[in-house]
């Protein structure tokens, strides 16, 4: 009931379904629909319709069913699968179904109502077709038979009905019935479907195992297809005729048929060959393949040839004709070499070959596991060759194939071979997705991959790469390589791993291994690069990296590669690997010792000049750090000093001092002192003093053992050189730089002493002016002035004596205790005051001889004697003083005065006195005079004795000593200075 109701509703709505223009359908559909609708509409306007119109309506509605069905199909296909599922298929085709029923009903109605309607046959025919197309084909036969039954003789509907029946039976696999009707149908050679019918009947014959007839029909169909009056079923025939020939056991004929009649029979012959293989076995199928192949080759149909060969691959594989499979592969390979296989062919070829070789490989490796030593060598080679071919055909997967080749060899423990293949695999794998390779390897017609496919490819690529590395390492581990082989392979593997996986746990270990590898091979540059790569990737592994770098440095040190060490030192100083200061300093020291080694040897061999030049070349070079330059300059300076080239030595020592750091410079204080002393011994006082002064200035505030000696040198040597101002300047440095006061005083005193010793009296006076207030110098000044005074005394330079005296008096102590010198000077001054007075005093004053008066004479004589006594008394303290020059002068004066009086008395002869008185007087005077002269003589002798005993050098002893007067008159004095001889040697024969 519901069904009827639904049908009625649908029928009501059907017009509306197709009346309006449907935008979802094509223009053609809409136009057709419109035409049909209009015609139906027009017809329906006629109230009384005869059978013909009704028949027309049936025709139109049949057309409508088509349109509706078309629309329904579209709706069905475009609906979501879930909607389709929920509704079910039938729901979508309700409309057309309903109309089908309607049309069937109408048709039967017409026939019922007008049984003799002349188109009853047509009506049945239409119903049959509708039943076939829309009714599930259940009533098709019935209506077709009825159509035939009701057909007017020689009506075209008979042919149509018979055709449809034949087809119906054919489709329903009622072949005999089908043949029966086809036989009739085939009589009508005007039917454009003649060729189709022939083809179909051919199939019917096949089904009824009348193969020969099938072949004839097919052939007929084929050849008639050439006729333009017929529908060409050529392809269909060709698709099937091969099969017919096979079934008919006329394989060769079939192959020939194709070859003779088809330009490109490849497709068909392949199909035929496959069928032949199934039904007739290898030989027959091989015939077909061969024929097809030769044909394609003869006709230069490359694509067909490829197709045939590809089909042959399966054929040979199935029939285990492995050699043929191989030859076919080779042939395909050759073709590919000339012109790469098209994408589809390539895919197919690769799939088939890959599958086969996979099979071979599995067999091979399985066998090898059980009996690794007795594997089939040829088998192995074949497998490898297969992969080579695959790599050529499908170069994008070269990495995969090489990998498999590696696996093949690995299975038989040929680790050397496997390594090489793995290597090739990796090399290709790494470049696979590079743009360059992609351009070369990608076929222009290759289909573009989807995003998902690309991602999938990448994943595979990555997975393969991982496997390759595992395999490389396994090959290395297991392979028995010679030393060089192992080395190069390991390096390759490690390097590649690092490049590919800059950061993973295995890489982390590999960095160290690669480093050690290079290091053991003494490829230091490479080991360095390895270290740097490690550092870049793993900044935190500093401790390990330091250890590695230390090994590099050890190598450089061992090989005495100073250039490299020099190159690294600035980097170490800048913080490379955060090495501590101690390490850097040690490196510098080592560099120095390496650099200096050869020059030290030169020095040891006596080639000091060359060694010095060598050191200076190190100084000049920009390669070396400042410390090395400083040491080079320093060593050069030492060498120059050894060569007595004091100026150069001085220059380079100054340079070294400037360049040394604090520590280095201070470390060398002992050597600096030795240097200073040697410079002096080499007679370069200025340079020596300069270095000493400089060093003290630098370490002014430091305490060290050599400081005092350097200080002394800095002053003393400038003095010797006559650079007094510099000497003083260096002296003053002493206080500033903490030199002990006692030392400074000593040095100052030595300067002053120098001035005195060398008669640099002007300098001495200046010195005196500057330091006269220094109490500690009091003794020195006193002694100096006294010495200078006597110096001038001996030179007979009275003027200078006075000048010195005046200066000296200025510092006399007036209050405190007096120095010995002052006492002496005061005594001398006092003596000098007294002496002239005493000398001037007449002590031989006697009255005139003409005017002799005894009492006057006696008085005067007494006075003279008293004067002499007074003189003695006055001079006694000076004599007692012990100062030799004063003592001699005293005795000189006494001798002079005594002898003068004595001589005066000796010759005194007063006039006008009685002879006897005179005689007595004279005798008495003579006696007195003798005593006086004796006294005088005694004084003289004492003086002379004193002079001789004490070697008193007195310029005024001429008279006492008794030098001839002429000597004094002409002022001749023997200039000892101009006669003394220096002593060049100790003595003895030369």
């Amino acid at each position, binding site marked *: 009931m519901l069904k009827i109701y639904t049908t009625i509703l649908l029928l009501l709505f059907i017009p509306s379904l197709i009346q309006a223009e449907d935008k979802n359908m094509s223009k053609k559909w809409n136009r057709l629909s419109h035409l049909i609708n209009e015609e139906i509409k027009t017809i329906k306007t006629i109230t009384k319709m005869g059978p013909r119109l009704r028949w027309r309506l049936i025709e139109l509605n049949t057309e409508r069913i088509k349109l509706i069905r078309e629309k329904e199909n579209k709706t069905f296909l475009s609906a979501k699968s879930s909607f389709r599922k929920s509704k079910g298929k039938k729901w979508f085709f309700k409309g057309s179904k309903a109309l089908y029923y309607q049309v069937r009903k109408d048709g039967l109605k017409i026939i019922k109502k007008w049984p003799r309607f002349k188109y009853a046959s047509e009506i049945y025919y239409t119903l049959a077709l509708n039943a076939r197309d829309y009714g599930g084909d259940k009533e098709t036969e019935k209506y077709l038979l009825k159509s035939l039954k009701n057909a007017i003789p020689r009506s075209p509907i008979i042919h149509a009905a018979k055709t449809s029946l034949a087809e119906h039976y054919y489709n329903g696999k009622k072949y005999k019935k089908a043949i029966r009707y086809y036989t009739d149908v085939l009589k009508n050679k005007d039917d454009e479907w003649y060729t189709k019918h022939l083809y179909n009947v051919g199939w019917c014959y096949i089904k009824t195992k009348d193969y020969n007839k099938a072949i004839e029909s097919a052939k007929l169909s084929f050849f008639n297809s050439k006729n333009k009056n017929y529908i060409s079923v050529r392809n269909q025939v060709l698709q099937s005729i091969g099969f017919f020939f096979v079934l008919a056991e006329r394989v060769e004929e079939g192959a020939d048929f194709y070859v003779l009649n088809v330009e490109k029979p490849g497709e068909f012959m392949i199909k035929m060959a496959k069928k032949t293989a199934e039904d007739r076995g290898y030989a027959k199928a091989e015939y077909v393949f061969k024929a097809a192949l030769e044909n394609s080759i003869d006709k230069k149909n490359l694509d067909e040839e490829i197709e045939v060969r590809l089909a042959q691959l399966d054929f040979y594989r199935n029939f285990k004709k492995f050699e043929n499979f191989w030859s076919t592969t080779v042939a395909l390979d050759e073709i590919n070499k000339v012109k790469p296989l098209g994408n589809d062919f390539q895919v197919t070829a690769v799939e088939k070959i890959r599958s086969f070789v996979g099979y071979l490989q599995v067999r091979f490796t399985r066998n090898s596991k059980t009996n690794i030593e007795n594997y089939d060598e040829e088998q192995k080679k074949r497998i490898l060759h297969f992969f080579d071919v695959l790599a050529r055909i499908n170069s994008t997967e070269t990495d995969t194939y090489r990998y498999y080749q590696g696996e093949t060899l690995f299975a038989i423990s040929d680790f050397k071979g496997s390594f090489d293949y793995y290597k090739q695999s990796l090399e290709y794998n790494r470049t696979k997705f590079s743009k360059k390779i992609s351009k070369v390897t990608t076929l222009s017609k290759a289909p573009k991959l989807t995003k998902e496919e690309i991602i999938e490819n990448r994943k595979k690529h990555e997975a393969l790469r991982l496997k390759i590395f595992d395999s490389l390492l396994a090959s290395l581990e297991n392979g028995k390589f010679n030393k060089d082989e192992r080395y190069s392979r390991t390096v390759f593997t490690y390097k590649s791993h690092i490049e590919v996986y800059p950061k993973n746990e295995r890489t982390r270990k590999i960095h160290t291994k690669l480093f050690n590898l290079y290091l053991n091979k003494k490829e230091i540059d490479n080991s360095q690069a390895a270290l740097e790569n490690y550092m870049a990737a793993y900044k935190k592994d500093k401790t390990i990296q330091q250890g590695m770098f230390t090994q590099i440095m050890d190598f450089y040190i061992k090989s005495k590669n100073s250039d490299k060490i020099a190159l690294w030192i600035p980097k170490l100083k800048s913080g490379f690997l955060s090495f501590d200061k101690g390490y850097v300093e040690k490196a510098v020291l080592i560099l120095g010792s390496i650099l200096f080694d050869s020059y030290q040897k030169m020095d040891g061999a006596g080639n000091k000049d060359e060694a010095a030049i060598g050191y200076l070349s190190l100084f000049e070079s920009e390669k070396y750090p400042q410390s090395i330059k400083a040491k080079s300059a320093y060593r050069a300076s030492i060498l120059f000093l*050894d060569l*007595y080239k004091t100026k150069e030595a001085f220059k380079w020592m100054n340079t070294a001092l400037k360049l040394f750091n604090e520590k280095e410079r201070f470390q060398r204080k002992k050597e600096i002192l030795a240097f200073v002393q040697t410079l002096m*011994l*080499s*007679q370069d*006082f200025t340079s020596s003093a300069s270095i000493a002064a400089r060093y003290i200035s630098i370490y002014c505030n430091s305490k060290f053992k050599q400081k005092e000696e350097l200080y002394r040198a800095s002053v003393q040597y400038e*003095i010797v*050189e*006559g650079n007094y101002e510099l000497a003083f300047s260096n002296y003053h440095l002493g206080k500033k730089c903490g030199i002990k006061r006692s030392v400074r005083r000593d040095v100052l005193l030595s300067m002053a002493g*120098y001035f005195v*010793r*060398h*008669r640099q*009296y*002007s300098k001495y*006076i200046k010195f005196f002016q500057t330091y006269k207030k220094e109490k500690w110098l009091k003794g020195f000044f006193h002694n100096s002035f006294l010495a200078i005074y*006597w*110096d001038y005394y*001996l*030179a007979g*330079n009275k*003027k*200078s004596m*006075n*000048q010195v005296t*005046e*200066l000296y008096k*200025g510092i006399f102590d007036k209050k405190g205790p007096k120095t010995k010198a002052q006492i002496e000077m005061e005594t001398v001054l006092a003596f000098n005051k007294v002496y002239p007075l005493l000398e001037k005093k007449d002590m031989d004053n006697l009255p005139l001889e003409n005017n002799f008066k005894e009492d006057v004479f006696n008085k005067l004589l007494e006075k003279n004697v008293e004067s002499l006594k007074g003189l003695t008394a006055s001079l006694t303290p000076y004599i007692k003083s012990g100062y030799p020059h004063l003592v001699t002068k005293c005795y000189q004066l006494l001798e002079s005065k005594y002898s003068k009086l004595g001589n005066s008395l000796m010759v005194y002869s007063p006039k006008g006195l009685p002879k006897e008185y005179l005689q007595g007087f004279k005798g008495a005077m003579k006696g007195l005079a003798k005593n006086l002269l004796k006294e005088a003589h005694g004084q003289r002798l004492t003086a002379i004795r004193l002079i*001789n005993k004490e*070697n*008193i*050098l007195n*310029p005024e002893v001429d008279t006492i*000593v*008794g*030098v*001839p007067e*002429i*000597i004094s*008159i*002409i*002022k*001749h*004095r*023997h*200039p*000892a*200075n*101009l*006669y*003394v*001889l*220096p*002593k*060049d*040697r*100790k*003595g*003895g024969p*030369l």
Partner: protein
Amino acid sequence: MIKNLTLLMITLLFASCATKHLTSKVSDPLGDSFREESFLRYTEARLQKLENTPYKALAKCHGGETKEGLKLLQNTMSENKRNPEYWNQVGMCYFLMEDFAKAEYFYELSLNQVKKRSFAPALNNLGVLKLRLRHYEEALNYFKDAARASGAHKVPLFNQAQVYLQFNLLDQAGPILEKLSKTSKNDPDLLFSLGSVYLLKGQMKRALATYNRIPEGYKNREDVTLVTAIGLYEQGLFYQAKKILKAKNFIDYVPLKRSARKLTQLVEEKIKEIEAKKAADKKG
């Protein structure tokens, strides 16, 4: 005070000009009493013979090539650091260059290499230096110390005698020079010095006889001429005195020149007197 200082300084300036020595270069080694100790009186020919001896450098210095001599010495410094003779030689070269500061320094250095500083050459040379600087007493002490030190000591004794002579300590100078002259009978400087002792003692005949022993080549020295003239004068041989004074141009040493001039004056006065008396006697 300042005036005194200025005067003192001026005095010092003028005192610096002086002749180096009056001794002669002695060509005959046998005539050189001090040949084994001093090269000062070596002729060029004799110095050249020192070329292949350890005194090559010193010979250069004595020959006027002090820079070269010092350079040669410098080159052997390292092996001679502790050698007093070496440092004495260095000092000698500086002395000959009149760099007394360095000479003194190296003489001291020479002494420091020897125990108790007893190295005669350096001691002697310090004495010579002191004498140059007019530190007479110090000089004398050095000569005495040198004479006491081991080794030959003719030179220090000779030098002592020179100082004694200058200060008329003739009883000290005489014995030294007499003893020394026994070893060499014709050393001009030795004979000159000995003659001077006699001269200053008033023993003119002896003095003249001693001067006469001086080899001919050295007799016409200025100093020899002067003292001979003094002796002649004292002997009353005025004409001879005049002759030798006239024949000599005194240029080496200013004091000698002054003394010679004065003596010439006296000689001429005496000759005038004699001539006058002769003339008077002739008249009378």
